[in-house]
């Protein structure tokens, strides 16, 4: 059963295509804006550049409803646990974009208070350079992310997520089979002993009657 689920076939691959099409064209961002990069994101979102052309229609201000965590700005050590908590609150599938030099590497804040890149805290999918990056760079990152989303396989991820469960079920079945086999063997031995005793009894009785 496990092998069948892992192999791509016409049903799973078309389901993958459908799911990825939906996901990649409705990437709703959660703007974690702490500095000037957030202003740049605002100009990406509105009028002239219009991020909703590629389906990022709504900017969600709650981690429960968003797909992309957009870290735009400097992250200090005081803020690091808050960012991690917000990332953990997001529902899967989730992606992270590190926007600008500060979020990617700490930027020029080489000091005691700034986290040198948010990849020390959470996994990052796309990095954008620049201080701050232009909206075109942000669009480029969104296209990269869309490509990445389209490469993913929904069925494979599902198979991996239930792989542990499958292995556990297999192990339990094998154990149960072994137990039954051992039980049956014991029973057979018992029956054989019983038969032997009976035979000996018969032999004894026959001898007695002969005498």
């Amino acid at each position, binding site marked *: 059963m496990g092998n069948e689920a892992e192999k791509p076939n016409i049903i799973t691959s078309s389901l993958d295509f459908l799911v990825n099409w939906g996901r990649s064209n409705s990437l709703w961002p959660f703007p974690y804006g702490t500095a000037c990069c957030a202003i740049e994101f605002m100009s990406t979102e509105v009028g002239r550049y219009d991020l909703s052309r590629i389906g990022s229609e709504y900017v969600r201000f709650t981690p429960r409803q968003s797909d992309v965590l957009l870290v735009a700005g400097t992250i200090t*050590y*005081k803020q690091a*646990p808050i960012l991690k908590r917000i990332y953990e609150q997001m529902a899967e599938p989730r992606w992270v974009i590190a926007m600008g030099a500060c979020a990617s590497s700490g930027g020029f804040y080489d000091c*005691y*208070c700034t986290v040198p890149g948010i990849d020390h805290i959470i996994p990052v999918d796309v990095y954008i350079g620049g201080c701050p990056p232009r909206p075109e760079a942000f669009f480029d990152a969104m296209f990269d992310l869309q490509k990445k989303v389209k490469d993913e396989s929904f069925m494979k991820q599902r198979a991996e997520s239930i792989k542990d469960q499958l292995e556990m079920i297999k192990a339990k079945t094998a154990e149960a089979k072994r137990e039954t086999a051992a039980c049956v063997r014991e029973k057979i031995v018992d029956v054989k002993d019983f038969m032997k005793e009976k035979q000996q009894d018969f032999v004894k009785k026959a001898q007695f009657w002969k005498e």
Partner: protein
Amino acid sequence: MTVEEIFAALEEKFGVKREMHDKWGVTAIVSASYLHNVVQFLKDETGIKFDMLVDIAGIDYLTYPNHEGPRYAVAYAFKSMENPGARIRLKVLVSEEDLKVPTISDLYANANWYEREVYDLFGIVFQGHPDLRRLLNHVEFVGHPLRKDYPAQKRQWLSTNDYLLPELEKRLETLGYRVVQRSKEVETNDNEFLEGSIKA
């Protein structure tokens, strides 16, 4: 009352010396014991009312060339709103053994956060301050980063974010509100709360 007269009055009353190195000649060196009285005098009794506290800055003279005297200093900058352009700076020298300066947060409300900042970054204790906590760095930070002997690139992780609800409730209670009932989501569960933390 001109600036010269103010300096003369300060010298007569409190034994305040004028800083010679200051280019503009508006800095006075005050001893910590007279600071509160000097500030009150400047605020209320002089003809020019210095009613605006512009800044409080800590200074560490550890690597300063040709410096003699105590290691730290706290500099206060005042400005007058009635006579724009009238400014005065006070400087309190603080030795390393006795890192104590009286607070002026009872005279200027904004001195509260300025003094917290100086305490956070230099470790100078302001006596009589109502709430002397760190302002910029997190609670688990060890040391005072703007001291010259603190390695500038030494980073310190914070393990968990602040839980501010008890403080919020305390403030609401001072405003006359009362906590009648808490919902289940709001009640603290330490284990669950620490789940999202970063272990360095």
